[in-house]
């Protein structure tokens, strides 16, 4: 009998602890609507065309090497467009628009534990969402999203957090 009561009180305590954790998390949430604060971060996004054809506008060597390791079937990575965003507005929907074909909507959720930024993102192709993702992105560790096929290659969206 005592053992059963102990279990019930333990579970009740655990549940209440969880409930108060949620309540506190909500209290420490974002500021009031309309507050336009910026984060001290710079995002860089690019639309890259991966193929095996030559190009006169390749991405930088370091990025090309990384893309080549991630997408081994392609040898050439052409920079179609890029977007550098110095100011990222907290609690705003931000956009990285290197072209009007593929663009990235993202919402920064602030710094992550252990460094980097927590980001909710959506990759759009015109008016269609291709993918939604919840990521932690760190400086020097870019995010590659392999998008649709185009001509003899594939479009790749690159997102990088720069210090």
């Amino acid at each position: 009998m005592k053992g059963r009561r102990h279990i019930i009180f333990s579970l009740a305590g655990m549940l209440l602890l969880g409930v108060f954790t949620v309540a506190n998390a909500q209290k420490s949430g974002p500021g009031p609507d309309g507050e336009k604060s910026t984060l001290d971060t710079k995002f860089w996004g690019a639309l890259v065309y991966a193929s095996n054809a030559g190009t006169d506008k390749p991405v930088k060597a370091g990025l090309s090497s990384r893309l080549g390791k991630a997408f081994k079937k392609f040898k050439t990575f052409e920079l179609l467009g890029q977007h550098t965003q110095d100011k990222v507005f907290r609690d705003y929907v931000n956009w990285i628009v290197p072209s009007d074909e593929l663009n990235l909507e993202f919402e920064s959720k602030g710094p992550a534990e252990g460094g980097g930024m927590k980001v909710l993102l959506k990759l759009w192709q015109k008016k269609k969402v291709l993918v939604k993702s919840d990521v932690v992105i760190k400086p020097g560790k870019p995010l590659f999203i392999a998008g649709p096929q185009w001509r003899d290659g594939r479009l790749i969206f690159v997102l990088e957090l720069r210090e």
Partner: protein
Amino acid sequence: MNRKEELITRWIDGELNGATQEEFDALMANDPEFCARIRTETEGIRRALRSEMSAEVEPPYPDFFNSQIQKRIRQQDHTVVSGHVRSSTSMLWWLRSPFTWGAAALFMVLLLTRNDDRVDSNGSYVVSTYAPDPKVSVERAEYDDEAQATVIMLTGLEPIPDDVEVRGRDITAYEPAGPRGGGRFYTGDTQLAYIMETDIDGAPEILARSEDS
């Protein structure tokens, strides 16, 4: 679980029928003090949950969350059809227990509150990924050690027709129109490149300005 515990569990869940109700009434008559205590404690937990959980906690992507629940239900149905679940209901007694559901609720609360704080020693990482179009699937979403980058690989996307000219710009500034999105995008020499508006669903409408204009 003995018979007494099973009856109490059913009583808490409001699942007593005629025969079990009589059995339970007899149990109450024999040990009313214990039953009253259980009832008081259970009601206390329920009241605390109702009062504290009135605020909504929205998961990061509700449609992703729902799709995962539906997926689990489908998997469970499939398992039952395949005959992997034993017919004996005694194997599932724990599912009826409020303690099981309490533990599950606690797990979900911890998952929702701790998910964003996960730390990966490799650096960038993907917490969740979801492709809304059922024809599209996420083949891969992980950190690639060799490339030193996080890679999300999508399959099933419609190819862009060859005659479409995919062109880009070098955007250096973005002026948001408001918290919900949209705005103006400029190239290095402060020339307006794109004007974006978002519709009621948040979908972008981009007007590209000529590079000569």
